[in-house]
């Protein structure tokens, strides 16, 4: 079931270094939120705190509060592994498991969750997930081929299928199209607007046209000087952000007068 996300006073640290400061954000369920901003402003770092993936880096920690569906992600006794099962993620570069077939890639998350799944259920789930990722027609005849045999755009949609196969409530996307050609990008963007019906989506992108095309709301992150923490400058409806932002910095960035 899709869930909303509430972020309050979030500070993200790597050791003693504060990478992101004082983020407050409210994300509604079944919406697409785009995060834009210059490189190094902390938008990807912020995204990764929404499923506790930033903890993979030693020394990373957060202060503040993140709630998804009313549950505090950083509460006592909350297992990051359980969080990641609930909050799916798609990465910048397509990363299907090279040693697994297309079908096994889709089932990877389900099998991890230690659920035993019958063969017919597995086949159904593979088809449903691949259809959900608009990939079924292209790969239905070669489900036992390695995932790495697909094109980059297909691999990325395979990764989306893998992420939605475990029925997460939130889907995070970290620049999912930055390694793809325009046609594959278009396919993913169309997919995002369909996925919105079933998931809450947060997407980081460097492509402002993309943010304008796919998202309902857009958040702009910025960094004042190197070494300063990144901050959320403003977040608003996408139409407002791109036509009439309330902050000067946002307007400068969107109109390309950045820096």
């Amino acid at each position, binding site marked *: 079931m899709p869930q909303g996300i509430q972020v309050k006073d979030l500070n993200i640290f790597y050791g003693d270094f504060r990478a992101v400061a004082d983020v407050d954000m409210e994300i509604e369920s079944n919406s697409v939120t785009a995060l834009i901003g210059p490189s190094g402003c902390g938008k990807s770092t912020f995204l990764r705190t929404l*499923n506790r*993936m930033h903890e*993979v880096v030693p020394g990373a920690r957060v202060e503040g509060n993140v709630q998804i569906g009313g549950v505090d992600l950083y509460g006592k006794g909350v297992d990051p*592994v*359980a*969080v*990641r*099962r*609930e909050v*799916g*993620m798609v*990465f910048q*570069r397509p*990363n*299907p*498991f*090279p*040693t*697994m*077939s297309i079908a096994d890639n889709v089932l*990877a*998350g389900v099998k*991890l*969750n230690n659920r035993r799944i019958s063969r017919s259920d597995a086949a159904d789930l593979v088809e449903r997930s691949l259809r959900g990722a608009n990939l079924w027609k292209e790969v239905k005849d070669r489900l036992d*081929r*390695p995932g*790495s*045999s697909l094109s980059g755009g297909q691999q990325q949609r395979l*990764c989306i299928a*893998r*992420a939605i196969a*475990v029925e997460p409530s939130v889907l995070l996307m970290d620049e999912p199209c930055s390694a793809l050609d325009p046609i594959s990008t278009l396919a993913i963007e169309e997919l995002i607007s369909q996925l919105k019906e079933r998931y809450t989506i947060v997407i980081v992108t460097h492509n402002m046209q993309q943010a304008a095309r796919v998202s309902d709301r857009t958040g702009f992150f910025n960094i004042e000087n190197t070494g300063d923490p990144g901050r959320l400058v403003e977040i608003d409806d996408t139409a407002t952000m791109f036509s009439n932002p309330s902050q000067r910095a946002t307007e400068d960035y969107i109109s390309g007068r950045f820096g």
Partner: protein
Amino acid sequence: MTVGTPPAPVAAAGPRAADRRTGSHVWGGRVFAGLSYGSGILILLVLAAVAVFLVVQALPALTADPTELEQISWFRAESLLGYVGPLVFGTVLAALLALAMAVPVSIGIALFISHYAPRRLAQGLGYLVDLLAAIPSVVYGLWGALWLIGVLDPVMTWLSSTLGFIPIFAGYQAPAKNVLTAAVVLAVMILPIITAVAREVFLQTPRLHEEAALALGATRWEMIRTAVLPFGRSGVISAAMLGLGRALGETMAVLMVLSPGLLFSFFLLKPGQHQTIAANIAAQFPEAAGLSVSVLIATGLALFVITFVVNFVARAIVARRKDFSGAN
């Protein structure tokens, strides 16, 4: 004109400079290409030389009449094949037992170093494992013969009395100069090479794949199972083959630990059942002359063939799932 003048000298110097550069390029390229070709061919020549030497020297034994072979004092067999057979069996058995013990432990150590241990501990442990590889095999032999045999004695007594109904564990006789003890020594000896290679392979697992598994809600062990181990599979097989090669050819340690015998025997705890080719050559060579040398060389030829077969099999295993290797 002021704009036009500067390019002129550049244009004049250009071709000459380019010529000179191409000249040295060609020379450096040729020398380097020659060196690489030479090294490649040298390897083939050495391999061919060894093979030719083995065949030529073994030929008298291969063509000899059984009655001639029976003249050799230690030759107790119907034919050359009857002599080589148990030796091949003993060699392969000892090496496989060693491999079966060493590979799981090595993978465990390698994973601990690459994915579990804090960085500083991992580094120290890595050095320690590498140090194991630097110990000469004769020292391993001493260690096995003087210490390990005593330590294994109660273990094997227990094994034989409780699991003795399984034939391979039946009939233990002290001291533990049996093939299992030899295999334990061999396992310790091949541990470092397998661990070192496996560790390097595991460390090369793309971060992307590890993160993909973690983002699906994998625990650390599940991440290792879905991303690290499949990625490292072919590397671990190569590592195991390197270890197997060393175990097959190991001489001194086996010679010092194992009480020899020439039987096709699966009694792992009985002494006087097995012998390996390498240890046998070392044991008999000082007293050998004429045809008996040739017989020993024939056994060496068999060892050479075994190592070849092992390598081909390993390559076949790796190649069978090439599409899924992650290299594409």
